């Protein structure tokens, strides 16, 4: 027999130039050895046809030249996140991610860490050469204390730049990973152990048993400024004090974890509200309406939007409700956007509302100019309103707080606006659907339903008295 590389393309035709049987890696680069080991293990496990390989950014970006299986290239640091996504979409397929230490250890660390913590079902190969190789040998999170790189010319200063990141040791603190091992490709003995660990991780992935992680110490002779043989020897000497080799965890004999079944609950059980069994209907003749409700946080802006949205839902309309608020629970500005339509709604954001309700001055100033021509601005009459309204827009001062006060519910200004909108015909719903939605919104405080209905009626009466119906 002839021992030769398997699991890789016969010719690397995706690679530029004529050297299509040679890698793009530098002479003596550990990536080449790792590539051969992964390819061989994939071939031995007969998993190439099914596998999706997720490549990184860095020297190994071009790993798709070599592995003879499916491939996706991820943005910098995101291979673990992309592998997570693919593993969710293709839960039965082997997913393999490959990342370097600059990629995984720095910008991508949280992606890899959270994937490990969730036990996302893919094999992750982490190639550690203690620096950013492709970009010219800069310091990486894995760079050793005192190690000279192009960005630490006097050696890495741990006070300024921290300690080398030991990813295996960090992952070992997590519950979910099935397999964690650190190996090296610096010499024959180490390569043989790396071969075993890589094959084990791939077997775990073939059997879809969960997250398997292999860190591979891999010399970069170019950036070590040494010939490959000496670099490999020195690499073992330098690296393994900080990054000891060995298996940290192997739970591969246990069955893969299965999700616990969670009892399903109805929307009403979950939220104490909402309605079920209403079918949304396509109605191209229905004109889409955009509402912007705005004011201080605590004025019931978001609730007002929800009541309108609920009324729309009960009539089988498509509806979106999107809140926007500052960090304050009370007192900051709040607004919400409600779109009611006869067909599916694209974006829930609103640039040009048909109706603006402004319960305070900052909101009036902020949103008045955005109202569509032919639209309506309904604002609290006690606030300053000398701001100049856009042409073709009807601006109506409305004494919401007075009406709420007169009816003994000072906080029901939002309900007053609801009544005013209903009275003016701005809400394309049956009145019963509006009042039902209002009552529903107060279901946690039923004693407020009756007074709010009074406010609603009083607001409508104000409109009919003033003949503001439009």
């Amino acid at each position: 027999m002839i021992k030769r590389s398997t699991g890789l393309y016969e010719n690397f035709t995706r690679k530029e130039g004529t050297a299509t049987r040679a890698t793009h890696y530098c002479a003596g680069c550990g990536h080449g050895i790792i590539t051969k080991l992964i390819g061989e293990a994939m071939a031995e496990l007969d998993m190439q046809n099914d596998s999706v390989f997720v490549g990184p950014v860095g020297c190994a970006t071009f790993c798709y030249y070599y592995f003879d299986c499916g491939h996706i290239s991820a943005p910098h640091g995101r291979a673990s996140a992309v592998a997570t996504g693919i593993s969710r979409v293709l839960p039965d397929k082997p997913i393999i991610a490959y990342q370097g230490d600059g990629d995984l250890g720095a910008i991508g660390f949280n992606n890899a860490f959270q994937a490990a913590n969730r036990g996302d079902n893919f094999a992750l190969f982490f190639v550690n050469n203690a620096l950013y190789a492709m970009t010219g040998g800069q310091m990486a999170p894995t760079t050793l204390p005192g190690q000279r790189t192009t960005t630490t010319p006097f050696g890495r200063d741990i006070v300024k730049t921290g300690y080398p990141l030991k990813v295996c040791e960090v992952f070992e603190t997590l519950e979910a990973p099935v397999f964690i091992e650190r190996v090296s490709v610096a010499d024959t003995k180490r390569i043989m152990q790396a071969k075993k660990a890589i094959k084990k991780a791939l077997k775990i992935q073939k059997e879809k048993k969960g997250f398997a992680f292999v860190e591979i110490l891999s010399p970069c002779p170019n950036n070590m400024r040494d010939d490959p043989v000496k670099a490999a020897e020195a690499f073992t000497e330098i690296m393994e004090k900080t990054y000891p080799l060995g298996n940290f965890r192997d739970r591969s004999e246990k069955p893969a974890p299965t999700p616990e079944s969670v009892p399903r609950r109805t929307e009403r059980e979950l939220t104490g509200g909402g309605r079920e069994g209403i079918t949304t209907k396509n109605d191209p003749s229905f004109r889409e309406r955009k509402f912007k409700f705005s004011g201080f946080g605590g004025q019931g802006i978001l609730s007002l939007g929800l009541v309108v949205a609920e009324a729309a839902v009960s009539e089988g309309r498509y509806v979106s409700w999107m809140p926007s608020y500052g960090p304050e629970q009370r007192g900051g500005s709040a607004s919400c956007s409600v779109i009611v339509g006869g067909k599916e709604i694209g974006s829930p954001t609103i640039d040009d509302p048909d109706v603006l309700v402004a319960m305070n001055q900052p909101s009036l100033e902020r949103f008045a100019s955005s109202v569509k021509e032919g639209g309506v601005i309904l604002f609290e009459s006690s606030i300053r309103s000398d701001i100049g309204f856009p042409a073709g827009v009807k601006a109506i001062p409305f004494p919401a707080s007075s009406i709420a006060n007169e009816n003994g519910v000072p906080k029901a200004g939002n309900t007053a606006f609801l009544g005013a909108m209903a009275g003016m015909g701005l809400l394309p719903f049956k009145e019963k659907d509006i009042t039902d939605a209002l009552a529903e919104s107060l279901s946690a405080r039923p004693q407020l339903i009756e007074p709010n209905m009074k406010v609603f009626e009083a607001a409508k009466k104000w409109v009919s008295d003033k003949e503001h119906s439009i």
Partner: protein
Amino acid sequence: MEDKPYPIISEDECKGCGRCIAACPKKVLRSSGSVNNRGYIYAKYSGEGCTGCFICYYNCPEPYAVEVYRPDSEAD
């Protein structure tokens, strides 16, 4: 002629890193001293003493620079 193991070194794929030469337990690989078409001084088999252990194959970072022929393997 006796059927013996031997390494097959593709002159042009070799980048002359020397990992196979250093790793060979029988010390039967050496630098050729010649430059290949791509500018690397490639490795060469001395012609005698290979045991077919594959160590050169596994140390070589290039997928297609070193292959090893072994007559007695059952794993083919």
